[in-house]
């Protein structure tokens, strides 16, 4: 997901570069918003060294549990902690209800779009999205054409990145419909807060998140293949201990009470998938896979993959195993299709989108490309297939040379880029070197779609840009996390 910056287009504060950001705790007149009343009072009274001490304690605990991630490009042995901010981010019940309705709507539309894209393609006939968006997409999987998936669900687990710019509106920054990560931090952050600040939970009716694993398991079991007998066997498939999110994989497998498998633990025999156990082969029904499409089956996709299971796709196509998420969901979450989401929601659901889209210029269209090049210094330009905050230009923060180089890249292959106005991410009080200061945040709630219903635990992962003025919240770029509280009032 990308972090963004400063004021909306055509608003005067952008050009003057002194944007007023929406602060989630304090109104512009300095008064505290209702949801934050008790917290603000507590922050005013707690000695700074107590906060400092507890922050250190939190870090110590995280390191002990081994909640680490690896940064690609650094030595294989490097394990880093994601900085944790001890001041929670708070949403009230009304805000959450609106947000979760919007999330449910959006993921429903994503699933319908995917089914349509791999079957009748009515949206193309309606002329609402260009053909290349589907067929020209490198992550489009022809193997999925006409392929039934259980209950037409493609995206069982979605992570939707949202930001706030004012008291009333949530904007979606990005949809993650492949293998979204971060949910372990949502759960661990809450555990840590309960442990370090039990007194805060007495004053705040915080909706629990710990049922996430139960919800996830129920979701996964609900999409088991029809051929599975009795209680379906669910496994979590990881690329292995060197993957940057390995901690999360093992954490979730533990909470789900399922086996944490690697490709080499499984094999295909007679259109069925088995794992090797101490009691001999055991059939696998549902794979919550945290391995990208490209790597799951060397016979179907990248032949050099050591992480997959040869023949897995044939079992999948025979309908004898369910993959969560389905193969080929990448066509629904890249930055090019993002700009069509409002139309996609209207087309499939006949509803107005509840969550807003950030205005997006598609460089593939000549008039929009011209606008982007003319205004590139004011815009955020992103690679359509980029992620993790890499491969993007933040116009207002870049020097002339960088802008020129990036403009040349865009001109060379315009279809690979989109541009957005710099967006005023909201701020939350954060405990940093100089004390408590506002820092920019975003939010990734997790949406679970099963046969029976959609489940969203109240909260999500709040990411925070820790350095002053920064709007890049990615952990690979020095961002931290916060516990996210949804108040039951």
């Amino acid at each position, binding site marked *: 997901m990308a972090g963004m910056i400063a004021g909306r287009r055509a608003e005067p504060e952008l050009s003057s570069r002194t944007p007023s950001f929406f602060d989630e705790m304090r109104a512009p007149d300095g008064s505290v918003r209702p949801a934050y009343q008790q917290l603000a009072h507590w922050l005013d009274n707690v000695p700074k060294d107590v906060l400092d001490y507890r922050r250190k304690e939190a870090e110590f605990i995280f390191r002990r549990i*081994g909640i680490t991630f690896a940064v690609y490009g650094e030595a294989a042995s490097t394990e880093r902690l994601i900085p944790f901010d001890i001041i929670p981010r708070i949403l009230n019940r009304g805000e959450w209800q609106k947000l979760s309705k919007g999330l449910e709507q959006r993921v429903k539309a994503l699933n319908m779009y995917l089914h349509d894209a791999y079957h009748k393609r009515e949206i193309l006939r309606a002329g609402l999205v260009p053909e290349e968006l589907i067929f020209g997409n490198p992550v489009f999987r022809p193997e999925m054409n006409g392929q039934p998936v259980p209950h037409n669900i493609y995206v069982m687990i979605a992570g939707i990145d949202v930001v706030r710019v004012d008291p009333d509106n949530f904007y979606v920054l990005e949809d993650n419909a492949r293998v979204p990560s971060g949910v372990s931090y949502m759960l661990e952050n809450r555990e840590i807060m309960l442990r370090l600040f039990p007194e805060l939970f007495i004053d705040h009716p915080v909706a629990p998140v710990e049922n996430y694993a139960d919800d996830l398991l129920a979701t996964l079991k609900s999409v088991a293949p029809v051929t599975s007998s009795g209680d379906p066997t669910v496994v979590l498939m990881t690329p*292995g*201990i060197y993957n940057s999110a390995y901690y999360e994989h093992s954490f979730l*497998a533990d909470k789900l009470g399922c*086996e944490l498998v690697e490709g080499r*633990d499984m094999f295909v025999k007679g259109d069925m998938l088995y794992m090797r156990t*101490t009691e001999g082969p055991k059939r696998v029904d549902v794979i919550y896979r945290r391995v990208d499409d490209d790597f799951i089956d060397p016979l179907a996709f990248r032949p050099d993959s050591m992480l997959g299971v040869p023949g897995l796709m044939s079992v999948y196509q025979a309908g004898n195993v369910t993959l969560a998420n389905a193969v080929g969901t990448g066509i629904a979450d890249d930055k090019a299709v993002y700009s069509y989401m409002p139309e996609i929601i209207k087309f499939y659901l006949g509803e107005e989108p509840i969550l807003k889209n950030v205005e997006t210029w598609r460089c593939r269209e000549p008039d929009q490309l011209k606008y982007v090049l003319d205004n590139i210094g004011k815009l955020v330009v992103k690679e359509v297939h980029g992620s993790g905050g890499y491969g993007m230009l933040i116009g207002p923060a870049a020097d002339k040379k960088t802008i020129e180089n990036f403009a040349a890249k865009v001109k060379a292959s315009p279809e690979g880029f989109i541009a957005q106005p710099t967006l005023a991410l909201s701020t939350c009080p954060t405990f940093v070197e100089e004390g408590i200061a506002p820092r920019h945040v975003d939010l990734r709630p997790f949406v679970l779609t099963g046969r029976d219903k959609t489940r969203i635990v109240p909260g999500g992962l709040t990411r925070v840009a820790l350095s002053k003025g920064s709007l890049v919240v990615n952990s690979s770029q020095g961002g931290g996390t916060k516990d996210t509280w949804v108040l039951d009032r």
Partner: protein
Amino acid sequence: MLSRTASNLYWLSRYVERAECLARILDATYRLSALPQGYGSETNEWQSAIATAGSVISFGENYKEANERTVTEWLAFSPENPASIRNCLEIARTNARSVRTALTMEMWDAINSAWHELHRYDPKRITREEFTRFLNFVMETSVRFDGTSFRTMLRNDAYWFSRLGFLVERADATARILDVKYHVLLPREAQVGGPLDYFQWASILRSVSARTSYHWVYRESVKPWLVADLLILNRQMPRSLASCYENINRYLDDLAQFYGRQGQAQRLARAMVSKLENGKMEDIFQSGLHEFITQFLTDNNRVGNAIGDQYLV
């Protein structure tokens, strides 16, 4: 349970146990080398430590001479030595990470904290005093890991595989220590009972942490044949070959019952138990202690392989 999970648990315990054995060997060697001339052996204690650790060949490829510096480096820290203490603990943690879900929080904590601690020792600048602390740290890590397993794990296949790894490694180490030391120390008639002899035998007991046990069991001064008896046949002694196999057999039986079938591993282990139960020191000495131990090491390996073939692949 996934075969890979079982395999990781088994090897995790083996490596932790191996690290402890190496620490004990080094500890005993340091003490022996600290004795004044005339008490120490005529042979090179450091060379014998290398032999006990079973890495004579690879050590020879990397160093010219076995002395305090080279042997300490090789057995404790060397990245070139796949079985150095440091590598054992690294591999143990890698295994532990792969099976996080099968470990209790306490076990993970024991391994993970040890791994962080390990990186605090700088082999280039370590002093003798720090090195003693390092050895203590390794031994404590093993005790802590073992203790957390015992106190926190469910008594199911995960526990049994973890125990089996520990016991197979332990049997191997005990046999090797006894063999090398016995070989080096095999007393000539004239020297039996001399001061040299006494400290040498005491050092064997120290390297398997059995000095006090010896005195409780035999209430005699240290005698070579009694040391051998303690470490081979005495079932009260948790490091003895007999005790290791009594337990290997028991856990393999638990597995067989749990899974409802048995195989080669169970059959081999049972044969080992009856051989050790019926064994007599006189017979073992008569047909040669070295020959007995060589055979034991081969058989122990065979049991390890059978466990591997039956459950871990």
